[in-house]
């Protein structure tokens, strides 16, 4: 205690700072950085969880390059991203833009739009899976059949299954994006709009010349946020295709599901680690792109 009392105020601060940070620094090193390094090391090794880890050089990456399933999965993952991100952003912006101008029952409408965001993904995956079942079980097909049309194979078709799984993922994320867009819209000073109205500018021009440019930070944030969540899609796919995960014929399998199966069904740990490194690299590029686009902020 005597030692502490003799320190200057700024030296005391240093002692306190590291006191506050000691356990957290240990946590980040042991639970975040060490595992990251371990995953990268493991991607250069061969290991089936029995015996010892053996060095394999680039074998896992070469195997990945020559694996037709990997390329299919890679394609699927980007289809989730390329369909999901623009669709969810356009829909949520359209809703936020109009909801922002509505006064009657405003908070009720907003609550209804937001509600799906709070549901458990697993629970909702099963609800949607039920909707997609063939006649006489699934509600969608019952409805289509009652109108006299031929029923649609949603989850049993290699072409329809991926969009069918994507739809609930988009649906569940809309509420969050609407709130973020509305907050962004409210942050634009009303004087901008008043000035434009005095100049007699049309609504469309206001949207294009004032609203969208000023929303750029919000848009960049949401593009990156939703891109990352679509690249990491897993819960919906796993639960909607439990009888044949990622099926039919791997047509819905995303990268994370392939990682899960390689690691915890085939126990090919080195190969799975190489897949996680690929996922990490993709996400890193997306994040760095965000930093680049936001640099002038």
């Amino acid at each position, binding site marked *: 205690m005597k030692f502490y009392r003799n320190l200057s105020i700024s030296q005391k601060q240093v002692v306190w700072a590291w006191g506050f940070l000691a356990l957290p620094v240990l946590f980040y090193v042991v639970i975040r950085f*060490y595992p990251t390094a371990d995953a990268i090391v493991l991607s250069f090794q061969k290991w089936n969880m029995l015996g010892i880890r053996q060095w394999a050089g680039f074998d896992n990456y070469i195997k990945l390059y020559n694996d037709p399933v990997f390329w299919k999965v890679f394609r699927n993952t980007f289809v989730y991203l390329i369909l999901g991100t623009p669709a969810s952003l356009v829909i949520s912006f359209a809703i936020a833009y109009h909801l922002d101008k509505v006064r009657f029952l405003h908070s009720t409408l907003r609550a*209804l739009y937001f509600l799906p965001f*709070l549901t458990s993904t697993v*629970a909702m995956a099963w609800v949607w899976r039920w909707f997609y079942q063939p006649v006489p079980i699934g509600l969608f097909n019952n409805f289509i059949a009652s109108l006299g049309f031929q029923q649609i194979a949603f989850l049993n078709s290699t072409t329809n299954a991926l969009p069918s799984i994507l739809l609930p993922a988009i649906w569940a994320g809309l509420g969050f994006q609407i709130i973020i867009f509305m907050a962004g819209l409210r942050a634009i000073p009303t004087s901008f*709009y008043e000035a434009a109205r005095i100049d007699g500018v049309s609504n469309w021009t206001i949207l294009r010349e004032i609203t969208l440019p000023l929303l750029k930070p*919000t848009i960049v944030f949401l593009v990156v946020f939703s891109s990352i969540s679509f690249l990491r899609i897993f819960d919906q796919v796993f639960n909607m295709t439990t009888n044949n995960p990622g099926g039919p014929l791997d047509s819905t399998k995303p990268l994370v599901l392939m990682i899960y199966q390689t690691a915890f069904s085939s126990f090919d740990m080195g190969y799975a680690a190489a897949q996680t490194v690929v996922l990490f690299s993709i996400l890193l590029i997306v994040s760095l792109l965000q930093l680049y686009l936001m640099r002038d902020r």
Partner: protein
Amino acid sequence: MADTQIRASADALLRAPASARGPRDPAAIIRWTLLAMGAIVMVMPIVYMLSASFKYPYEMYNLNIIPKEPTAENYAYVLSDGRFYRWFANSFFVATCTTVSAVFFDALVGYALCKFRFRGRLIVFIAILSTLMIPTEMLVIPWYLMSRSFGWLDTYWGIMFPGMMTAFGTFLMKQFFETVPDDFLEAARIDGLNEFQIWWSVALPMVTPALSALAIFIFLGNWTAFIWPLIVTNSQELYTLPVGLTTFSVEQTVDWELIMTGAALATIPTLIVFLIFQRYIIRGIAMAGLKG
């Protein structure tokens, strides 16, 4: 953007817009009608899930929302199994512990990085921030191996340890501590409080909106977490609600009304939480979004 502005626009979000046109305008009526229809479509899956959970199998596949003969038998059956209580309790316990720990440490680290001047501050901050770019999916394999060697597989600690601190929360709290004036802390220092007491009794009470927003995020995130609990647990007694729900639904195969009842049981608590904390949740998301 300045913090006062962020708070102001997050708060403004909770009020209805002021510049709305009168209700007589036909364009406004069409806009409102379309928005209302969209809102109804948005909640339809939840409505049908709840409706199905009160139906007998014979009318399960009809499109009517109000059951002709409402029944609580599905709930009685699903709950009689007993496992749901356990999974519910597990999820609640795990989410609560993780939330308390993460909010405590994120606020502690955020404060230290914001208010103390010391060598290495920037390095620690950048190091923590950089972990945001590491996806959970990359870490699950090493975490699994780690848990296996330490005997953490199939334990509560095993489910919880990865989430005990979060980089996102640290960043958020650091941003919010910027709004706490140093004069207050200095005054407390002169009054003889030590640094921990200053943090706890002076700084923390000034950022309670941010703390509650962070707590809600972390709780919801852990309540719905799926992939890590799925990997780390083996025995059904340790399952969290989402993992249990998957297992339960796979077992039922064709009894969709029971699957919907299970799904409803997993969803109802979050719906109740939402109804109570709606304003905090929406304001919290708006604040975090504007910060990000």
